[in-house]
Every structure is written in structure tokens, then in C-alpha cells.
């Protein structure tokens, strides 16, 4: 997976989309890999990318649009600088995930699926990160974190925010 950290780039670039398409040219049914890589390159898959992908893969724009909209991983507009995903599945629930989610939405002042006003963090829910013996689990971008309580969550947020503002990380 070539996904870059969310929020690192959001400028549309025809050349970069073209490069992704070229890299997957021989792949059968390669739409998902292409979309992953475009989102990795550009941070999102907007209408221009949809049009280019459709044209290149000989699909209709509607089809590509339908696929993008189906999968929670794909976004039509860029996320915040960091994406924090809180696992709300049962194993994590048994260890207080609901309380953690409540803490997260209240402390960040956003709902699940939303981005903080400063653009530093997009908060999302996820169902299972495969860390069910060390729950509650959270994923910060691609980094899995186990046994997260409110305090640990706040530390993760602080670190993500520092990263977003380019400050040295705590």
C-alpha cells in the first residue's frame, strides 16, 4: 500500500493520477488498487480523478463514482492532517470503547466522521482493527494503538496535532 499519511497532499495533479494509472496498467480488475494509490497520492479521489480513472479503465464515471462511494476508505475530499479511527466493535466495547468514543467526540468537539475545525484531525469509527485482546484499540493513520484510555487518547491527539503544525512531537 502506498498510502501516504492523510492530509499530506490534496492538490489535484493530472500527472500523478496518470502515473498511478500507468503503474496499474496490466492489472485485471484493478480499480481498487488504483483508487487506493490515487488517494495515497492526492489525499482524496475527486471528480477529476474519477473522470480520468473512468476513461483509463474503460468504465463509466458513474461506476467509478459508485465504487468510491461504497468503500469507507475512499473519500471525495481530503481528510484532516491525521485520521484517528476508534474501534467501536464488541471486543473494544467490552473494554469501554463507547466511553472512549464519547470522550473523543466531546474532547475534539466533532462527531464521528467529522474533521476538527483546525483541520488537524478527522475522527472516525471503525469496526475491528484486529487487536481485540488489547482493546480498546485505536488507529492513528496507519499506526495501531492498543489499550487506549482517555489519557492515552489525549496524548495521541496532542502528538497528531503537533505533527500537523510541524512542531517537534511530544
Amino acid at each position, binding site marked *: 500500500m502506498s498510502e501516504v499519511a492523510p492530509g499530506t497532499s490534496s492538490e489535484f495533479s493530472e500527472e500523478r493520477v496518470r502515473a498511478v494509472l500507468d503503474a496499474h496498467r496490466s492489472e485485471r480488475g484493478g480499480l481498487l488498487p488504483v483508487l487506493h494509490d490515487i488517494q495515497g497520492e492526492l489525499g482524496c479521489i475527486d471528480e477529476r480523478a474519477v473522470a480520468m480513472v*473512468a476513461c483509463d479503465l*474503460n468504465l*463509466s*464515471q*458513474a*461506476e467509478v*463514482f*459508485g465504487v468510491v*462511494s*461504497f468503500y469507507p476508505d475512499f473519500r471525495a475530499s481530503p481528510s484532516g492532517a491525521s485520521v484517528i479511527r476508534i474501534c467501536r466493535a464488541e471486543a473494544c466495547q467490552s473494554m469501554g470503547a463507547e466511553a472512549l468514543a464519547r470522550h473523543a467526540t466531546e474532547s475534539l468537539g466533532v462527531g464521528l466522521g467529522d474533521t476538527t475545525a483546525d483541520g488537524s484531525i478527522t475522527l472516525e469509527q471503525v469496526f475491528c482493527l484486529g487487536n481485540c485482546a488489547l482493546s480498546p484499540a485505536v488507529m492513528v493513520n496507519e499506526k495501531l494503538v492498543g489499550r487506549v484510555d482517555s489519557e492515552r487518547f489525549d496524548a495521541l491527539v496532542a502528538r497528531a496535532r503537533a505533527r500537523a503544525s510541524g512542531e517537534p512531537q511530544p
Partner: protein
Amino acid sequence: MPLVKERDLGTRAVSGSPSVELEIDGMAVAVPEGTSVMRAAALAGIGVPKLCATDSLAAFGSCRLCLVEIEGVRGTPASCTTPVAPGMKVSTQTPRLERLRRNVMELYISDHPLDCLTCAANGDCELQDMAGAVGLREVRYGQAGQSHLGEVKDTTNPYFAFDPAKCIVCSRCVRACEETQGTFALTITGRGFGSRVAPGPAGNFFDSECVSCGACVQACPTDALEEKSVIDMGVPDRSVLTTCAYCGVGCSFRAELRGDEVVRMVPSKSGQANEGHSCVKGRFAWGYATHRERVVKPMIREAITDPWREVSWEEAIGYAGSRLREIQATYGVASIGGITSSRCTNEEVFVVQKMVRAAFGNNNVDTCARVCHSPTGFGLSQTFGTSAGTQDFASVAEADVIMVVGANPSEAHPVFASRMKRRLREGARLVVVDPRRIDLVRAPHIEASHHLQLQPGSNVALINAMAHVVVTEGLVDRDFVSERCEMDDFAVWEKFISTDINSPEATEPITGVPAGEVRAAARLYAGAPNAAIYYGLGVTEHSQGSTMVMGLANLAMATGNIGRVGVGVNPLRGQNNVQGSCDMGSFPHEFSGYRHVSDDTVRHVFEELWGRTLDPEPGLRIPNMFDAAIEGTFRALFVQGEDIAQSDPNVNHVKAALESLELCIVQDLFLNETASFAHVFLPGTSFLEKDGTFTNAERRINRVRPVMAPRNGKQEWQVVCELSSAMGYPMQYDNASRIMDEIAATTPTFAGVSFRKLDELGSLQWPCNEAAPLGTPTMHVGTFVRGKGRFLETPFVPTEERASRRYPLILTTGRILTQYNVGAQTRRTGNVAWHPEDVLEIHPHDAEDRGISDGDWVTVTSRVGQTELRCRLSPRVPVGVVYTTFHHPVSGANVVTTEHSDWATNCPEYKVTAVEVRALRAPASALHRGA
């Protein structure tokens, strides 16, 4: 004529013998293997509730209303997706199934407006029907929960609205767009409860990839996708089965009415040409029939500078008849003539040619097919022995390689294009021969294996090169050729085609197509189990049109691709009745059924029946008429439903000819361009008023039934008969059916055709006679019509129209989906929303050389004329070629087209005009005529 609802068996038919026996609700049923339980039940008369299933689409299994119980099978499988098995015992009604269905329906209604009484689909809604069928009485969930009831309607399409609040997400529209139409413009967006039908990223239908074919509206079981006309006028209460009057596909429609007003046109599943599909023109663009500009009263004037004067039918016909006789008295019998229309019925055309031959006493009758497919008639009759395509449309489903030459079916024959695309998605290979990168070259899920992007005017060189490869690489089907063809002619042809000048390498400088591509395409075509050729005006409208048709026929014969399903040589006819108007004896040298006027036996048949001595010599063709008019020997013209002043080439020349006439009689719906040169205007009837038959591109004779009374008070054939009578040759028929009887009596290929038989069978493909009482879907099976197939040498004789330093670009013309021909009809409908003006496509390099930007106004100048167009930069055309459509009179594409024409038939060379394009420096608004 009650409102006819076609039966829906739920899932697609499966071919084969009914070999699987099973029991449904205690009834024994036998169906072909692979049939669904749902369809088997329906065939046994048992209706299983359903919403997502419809027999035009693949089974989907989403609505879960059609659940059944099967002995020995766990659970309650969906009957639409469960195939039958021998000995299966199915129950479609049990208390458990009833409860499940009611509860599923309850879920549907918990997210659906409860406004049936005020809903446009009230009484025409499958959701409503099913709620009744499953006995739903209450929605225990209430409607206070999450719902989509507040979603906003999309009314951007001119003809239909999408109301997401009423959508049940059955995906029938999405699937119809994919499976039936092949455009893939719709999708489901989101998922779960958030799943919604969406026309792609554009967010609304108008700005999406939607081509407005109406398949989604047709497929929708609720009011979610509904014709605006139904919303405005209400659900129709009666219907009449008839035939579309646009292109040569000849789709069957049910015109649905309230009282005398058409509410909508619904494509008929029983229509063999379209099988329930339609396009934006046929389905929606019928409003011109009642357009306010329609002329319904006869008019005359002494001079074309005079104002029109409304007169009675008697006066108009009397005036026209006496003027025609006067002119003949002064200038001779041959000084007048008539032009028949491919827009009119076979019966209307037949009486016009009869009037010319019997009343005018000459053979100066021609048809607008002259300017489109006359080379087809010539080329195919020379090689195969008859002037028509070889296959029915369904044949394409058996083709393994499809070669599309000079045709753009997705724009011009959309319903057939959908069939073809379906076959291509199934894996058939495609070769496109066209200077322009048409949609078929690459469209969603379609990609041509080879696009032979040839220089306009080099068709024959290309087809010769392909044949050269076939012959020199040992790809000839020797068995077929020796058994089915004239061997002497083949030997001459083989020698000719093998010469080096016909090799792909030698022709590459002429065609511009790399030799390797030509070789590969030829091998692909020749190597296919079934290879089929489909072609259009890009073949015929050239100075070598007839040669090219023969070249295609040669190639098909050499590879054995004639005489069975899945192969053939198939002209895609432009207008609804091009085939029919040719069949009906509209050519100056031929009687109906393509029999030369000099044939004494044939002529005597007509002479006896018509009681007149007929001229054994050919008459004037349309361009000859114009030349003779300017010369002064041709003085009067009757024009039936054709706007020659817009559609014929070198319009300035045509206008000069028309101006020099003493009498011009126009029979049409509107005061078209030609009518400005007319002295008598006889109002015509639209297809919604006509009674008769059209013959489509697959030789299929379809009934056209009057949906409403003629707004002008008379059928067109009646008017013609009265005019003939006024000239002293009485013609009288009780009804249109009698005209067909006369056609059948005089024309061997139509001997078995009658309105009664057509009403019984739906349609018939000629030849239909004693030997083929049910018609002939595939021609030349076993033997060619002419006996043995005849190879003809096809030397490439270049056109004299060449690019030069002064006119360095080649203009080629074509059509666009939403407009039709000269636009007389479509410009008077909502279709103008998509194509408000003709534009000139120019390659970005050519544009850059000339300092032209996208959207600029430009002048297009040829040796004969100049016009102005807005231009669009497009890589669809190659460098050196520009392209435009000719749907709008203001753009006057035919002002620049020349009088070059096919050597054998005089079909104009619309496809090759040397031009120069220059940017207009002044602002377009000041330049645009009328703007």
C-alpha cells in the same frame, strides 16, 4: 384500445427445449434448463410477487418478495435466482411465505411516501400492486424513523423526473442502463440504508453520462423515474401499437394516450427490432407532431415572393393538378417529376411513384435514398442479387467479430448499438473503420480491437488491402467460394486483388492506416467463426460508394461470411423507411421490388393493372432533375416530405434549381427550407396519424397505426390520389391496406404481405411469399438471390475532391444522437437542450495552426460555398480532418458540400469536402446570423 400492459415473466427467457419437468403449487411445468423458478411459475400462470425482477434484465435477487419454499431445500430461496431442477417441488404460497412477503413489503413502505392518491403513478405502480398482492394493511414501524422521504427531486432531464423519495433501490434502472442500454450512466451510491440511485458524480441526470434512452424510466417499478408528461397529464388509459418514425431501426412502440392526447411512447417488448428498448428520439421526441408551427391547412401562391394563402383542399389540389398539366403541355411529358420520402409509409411512397409513372407518364421519380443508400442498392444487387441487408438485428448476438465501417450506431442507430454493445461486452471483437474516433472505439466496457482511422475518401483502398491480405495469406474460405460463387468472376477478382497495388503497404500512403493494423484486422475478420459487417453512410456517401459496397460484399463472400446467422453485410439505414421507399419502386429505373423499367414482363403487369402504358426508359435522378431544372427542361416538382434545400449537397445549387422551377409542390409537416421555393403546400401527416407500414434496415415490415386523427384532415396517400385524379388519372383506395394489397399483387418479394398478416404476426421480413410465408430473417442461405455470388473488381478511383493548399482540410459530416437529420422534428422538441447548435470538430493541432480556440466561431469555406460554425477542439478527429453535423439549418453544412457523387448512383459525396477553416475575429454574437 385499452391500455395494454405487456406480461412480465420476471426473468429472461432461456433457449432450448422444455426438458426440465417440475411441480409448482401442484402444477406440472416443463421449461428449458436454466430457467428460473419464477419464470417457470409465470409460464404456468402462477404469479410470484416481485419488484426487482423483470424479464428484460438478469435476475438480481434483491427485493426478496419472490421467496418460495422448495421441498428438500433449506430456507426460502428467491425464485428469480433459483434455477429449476428436475423433479423440484415448489410452493409459492404458504403462511410463512405470506408473512415474510408482507413483512418485507412493510419495510419498503416504512420508507415510502403514503401519497398514492396524488402520485403520478397511481394505478401504474408495481409497488402499489405488490403491497396489495401481499396484503399489507399497516406499517407498524410508522414513518417517524429514518427515511429518504425528504429528498429532492431531480427535474433536469427535459423528459423525465427522478424522485429519490419514491425510489425503492431495486437497481432496475441501474441494471437497465447497463444491460439494456450499455451506457452505465447510473450507479448506486453509498451503501446500506444510504444506498441511493445516482447518475454518476454529476449529481443530476442532465449533466451526467445519461443519453436519455428511457430504459431506466421503463424499468422503474414506481414513480421514482417518471415521464414528466405522465406527471403533467396523468396515467394514460389506452394504447396503440405503432412504429417509430426516426431512424432505420424501426422500433415498435405503444403510444399511450388519454383521450386523443399522447401521454407517452413506451417501447414494446414484442417489437422484434427493439425488444422493448428505445432511444431519446423515439421515446421522448414526439412532441413535434403537435408543435404550433405545424401547418395543417393547404396553401398556395403564384410566386415564391408572394405570401402564402390558405385554401381548401379542393382548391389546392385542383390548382396543383392543372398547373402540372399545363406545364406538361408546354414543355413535354418529361418536364415534371416527383421525389418520394423515406419518412413516409410504404403505401404513401407507392402511390407517389405510381402517380409519377401512371399520371405524369414518365419515370422521373426518385427518393431521398438517392442521397444516402443508393450505392447499397447498386452494390449489393450486383454482388448478391438483392438490394438489402442480409441479416436481422438479432443476428449480431451470434457474431464473433463485428466490423463497423463508416457508421456511428451509438449516435445514429442507438437501439441497435445497444444490441451490438451487449454482444461486444460478451466478448465479440470489434474493428472500427472510420476517420473519426467514434464512441464504439472506446466506451465503457467496449473497446475496438482495431480502429482503422483512414483518410476520408480512401475506403476502397482500405477494403482492397484487407481483401488482399485475405487472399494472399490463404485466408479465403475456398469451400464457400467454390460452392456458392461464380468461379470465373472470383478468379478475375483474386488476380486483381492480389496485385501489389492493393497491398496494405502500398495503400498505406493513401489510407493513412498502418499496414500492420490492416493486416491484423483482416486476419481477425477472416479468422472469426462468424464475422459481420455493419456499415453506414460513411461507406455510401462517396464518389466510390458503390465500389465500396461491392468491396464489402467481396470480403464477406471470400471469407464465407454470408448466408447464416451471425454474419452478413448490413447497411444501417438512416431513415425509418429508406429500405421501404427503395423497395416501393421510387427509383427512376426500377419498379417496386427492384425490377428494371425496361423489363417488359414486369412493366406489362403494371400496365395491365394501372391501365396505362408505362415508359420503358429510366427517368431523372434527383441531381439530374436539379441540373435539368437549371438547364430549363425540367419545370415542375412534387416533393413528398423531404427538405432537399437543406439536406442535399451544394445547397446553393439546389436553391438555384428550385428557383428556376415553374411549379414546386411540397407535402410536409412544416414550412421547411424547400417550402420557401414552393407554390403549393400540401400539409402532411405525422407518424402518429399515418396508417401503413415502414420497412426497417433489416427488411422488417412494421405496422404504423394511426394514434390520432390526421390533423390536416387527410391521409397523405389520399392527397396524392386526389392530385393524380385531378391530373386525369383517377387513383382510389378504400384504405391503406388496399395499397399494400396492390404492392403484394405486383411485387413477388411482398406477395405474402398483408395488413392482416402483419397484425397477426407483429412484423414480417421480406422476401415474404409462398416460399417464405413467415418472411426471411437471414438472406442468401444456401444460395444467393442471384444464384451464385459474384465477385467484382473494385479498383480505387480517387475522388476529384482533394485537399489543396487553399483547402487543406477535409470536412466530413455525420449525426448526433439527440438530433435527427435536418432537425425538422427534433429541433421542435426538448432535444434541443442537448444539441442546440451544430459545431465543427477540429483537431487541436489544426486549431492551433489557425489560432483557433475551443468555442470560437469560424468560417468553413469550400470550393462551392462558405458557412460559419462554432468550433470544438477534439482529438476525436485526426489531424487534417474536420467534422460537423447538419441538424440545424442555420449552420448550413451543406452550403459547403460539393456535387461530387458516386459514379454509379450519383449519391452525393457528403463525406469528403476540401475546406479551409478560419477564425472569425469579430465577436460571435455580432456574427451569428439571427443572434
